[in-house]
């Protein structure tokens, strides 16, 4: 092993194996969100009346709605297992305290998520529990994505290479990004409340306008002040693209719900569009969080405030 490699490895606070595993966990979590959305769209949430077992067994007959509900439970168990490994592995292999805490946060979130899933079945889909289950899923997905991001070698090397002065504009880009994430999460909450019949469409429409405005504001700010930073600009551009696509999917989901409201059973076009809308919502939140971390990674170290990852030597 060359001395250069040794130096690089010493400055890489995670391991490549941990990074790949975190990315795999994030991918499995996205699949879990799709499976969960399928359960709701197929109206199969109560096809298995008991929990944690399914019809008193680990493996019931996978007929009709049971396929979706029990399939969701199986993927959830798998993701839970992955998250345990991820948390322990991060704790053992990553030198940064905050990343290790993030690993444990992921584990706490997946446990809470499993309990919420069980409660929503046992209490016949109460809106508050179902909405919390839906929103925590999005949050958990974002945590796994961030773990995948911050354990990458690129992230660690970028942090040293791209450090920049804190932007002078008010609100600053980092603050704007954090605010956008809160607005996006609020919109996911409103969407889940609409989907689980807790709120009307009007709140979700207002939320959609707010998210669109915020992501455009972020893009405008990046284009004006950081257009030379291809990393941030491409993330901001992608975020805007996804939000535009999401607006179209949202309109499509509303339209198809209306035209199929007398359908005798969930029709596949409706299922595909609504599941796509949920999945894209998860991706938008995750992408917004990734952009936020990228932005803070560049500018955070110029302040004493907070974003300094322990274990990574700052180079200025």
């Amino acid at each position, binding site marked *: 092993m060359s001395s250069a490699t040794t130096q690089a490895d010493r400055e890489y606070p995670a391991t490549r194996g941990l990074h790949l595993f975190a990315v795999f966990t994030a991918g499995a979590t996205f699949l879990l969100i799709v499976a969960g959305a399928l359960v709701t769209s*197929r*109206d*199969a*949430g*109560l*096809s*298995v*009346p*008991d929990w944690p077992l399914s*019809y008193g067994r680990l493996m019931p*007959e996978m*007929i*009709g*709605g*049971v*396929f979706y*509900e029990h399939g969701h439970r199986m993927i959830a168990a798998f993701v839970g297992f992955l998250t345990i490994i991820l948390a322990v592995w991060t704790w053992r292999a990553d030198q*940064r305290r*905050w*990343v290790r*805490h*993030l690993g444990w*946060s992921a584990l706490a979130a997946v446990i809470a998520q499993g309990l919420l899933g069980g409660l929503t079945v046992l*209490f*016949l889909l*109460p*809106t*508050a*529990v179902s*909405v*919390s289950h839906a*929103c*925590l899923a999005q*949050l958990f997905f974002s*945590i796994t994505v*961030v773990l995948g991001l911050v354990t990458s070698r690129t992230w660690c090397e970028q942090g040293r290479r791209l450090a920049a002065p804190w932007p002078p504009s008010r609100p600053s880009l980092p603050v704007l990004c*954090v605010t956008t*994430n*809160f607005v996006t*999460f*609020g919109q996911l*909450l409103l969407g889940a*409340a609409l989907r689980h019949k*807790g709120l009307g469409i009007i709140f979700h429409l207002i939320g959609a306008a707010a998210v669109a405005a915020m992501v455009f504001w972020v893009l405008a700010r990046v284009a004006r002040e950081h257009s030379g930073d291809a990393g941030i600009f491409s993330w901001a551009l992608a975020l805007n693209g996804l939000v535009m696509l999401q607006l179209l999917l949202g309109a499509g989901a509303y339209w198809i719900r209306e035209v199929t409201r*007398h*359908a*005798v*059973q*969930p029709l596949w076009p409706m299922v595909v569009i609504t599941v796509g809308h949920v999945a894209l919502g998860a991706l938008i939140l995750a992408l917004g969080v990734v952009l936020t*971390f990228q932005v*803070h990674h560049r500018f*955070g170290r110029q302040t004493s405030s*907070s*974003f*300094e*990852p322990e274990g990574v030597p700052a180079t200025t």
Partner: protein
Amino acid sequence: MRFSRSVSGWMMAGLLVFSLACGGGEDAGEVADAPEMEEAVVTVDPAKAATITGKVKLEGDPPRMPTINMSAEPDCRGLHEAAPPAEVVVAPDGMLQNVFVWVKSGLEGKFAVSDTPAMLDQKGCIYSPHVLAVQTGQMLKISNSDPTTHNVHPLPKTNREWNRSQPAEGSDIEYKFPRQEIMIAVKCNIHPWMRSYISVVNHPFFAVSGADGSFEIKGLPAGSYTVEAVHERFGSQEMSVTLGDAESKDIEFSYNAS
């Protein structure tokens, strides 16, 4: 990193606040029979009992009903190659089936609850009958004649919601609804096309229109009543009817398909 921790903390707190704000309202109590009232049971002299007969008609072209796709359930697919849903069933002469008709108001006093259980069967992954009515406190027996598992899941607003699995040809589910409630949807989440409606009424004066759109409500005391017809798709209509002793009146409800 304080930043990431504070972000996750705020999000968790938001979820908790939302849960608390929206929580509550679930009736988690055990199912109870209707509270016994100390009111005398009204008996109607058979010689004076009045009758309402009638028909329900659908004007215009009935909506085209798609066939049910039972591919998700091989045990039932063979029984119904192209089963239509029972939502809108119209006879060739335009008479509408599965309309719940009841005396909505005008009755006074308490009426005896029928000893005969009402029956709801699951056969070929379809509920039979599609629309059913029972009295509050009357026994409802739900059977499963299919070689597959169903879950029975009524979605009431004022009664308690419940969800029970019923294995293939398993024992009957027995239940008494304690409160009056019209057109409670009942569904099976395993087979999402399965849906029926149960109306729970405080008295025995109700009927469901048959294949020829006809209905009959008999044994009524003389009086002035509001009679309501309720269809799952076309909504409700009301009609005032005044009956004398032993009188029989024929009425007709008419829905518009458009």
